[in-house]
């Protein structure tokens, strides 16, 4: 049973560029959440997708957008990259309903903006 997978593992981009990160949820899960973790900080919630719609959103600008596909996988897009976007981006999957509240995290994508 594959867990949550993310690609790529590492990424280096230049200011102003755009980036797309990808996530495949754990088998059987239908909900994907994205988090940004700066060095030395806890993960910060970006947004959550369920049934191909954004259900919840954290305090992130519109430069951050996402998508969920019919197979529940998800993408995180960041436009007009800033130096401050350098962080570990984590994807977590879960079941929207069913009484199981645990979220399963992927290994993350380390984004460096130069």
């Amino acid at each position, binding site marked *: 049973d594959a867990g*949550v997978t993310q690609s790529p593992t590492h990424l280096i981009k230049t200011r102003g560029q755009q980036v797309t990160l990808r996530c495949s949820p754990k088998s059987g899960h239908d909900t994907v959440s994205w988090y940004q973790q700066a060095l030395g900080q*806890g993960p910060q*919630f970006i947004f959550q997708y369920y049934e191909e719609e954004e259900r919840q959103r954290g305090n992130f600008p519109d430069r951050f957008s996402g998508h969920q596909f019919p197979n529940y996988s998800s993408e995180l897009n960041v436009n007009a990259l800033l130096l401050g976007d350098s962080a570990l981006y984590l994807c*977590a999957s879960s079941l929207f309903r069913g009484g199981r509240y645990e979220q399963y995290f*992927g290994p993350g994508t380390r984004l460096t903006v130069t």
Partner: protein
Amino acid sequence: SQQGEEDPQALSIQEGENATMNCSYKTSINNLQWYRQNSGRGLVHLILIRSNEREKHSGRLRVTLDTSKKSSSLLITASRAADTASYFCAPLTQGGSEKLVFGKGTKLTVNP
């Protein structure tokens, strides 16, 4: 969702000793979860304790919850070098796929 505040921010112990870290929160909860993060990697769910539970065990982990004090503690017994990681608590108000709000965590170092 609400943010949990972990305390202490850093903890250094010797292998074999017990490690205790605490989490405080502000409003009533449905459940509280603890996660572990090894350096630069994804978070791993450790244990969930529901608001009507006072104590829960999982292997070398013991979690307590005091809803009157709005606090929880995570005890790791007989610690190992592999327990070196950051530990985060996540209090959930409703449950379900509620977003997790993390504090800065407790950075535990277990020295061999």
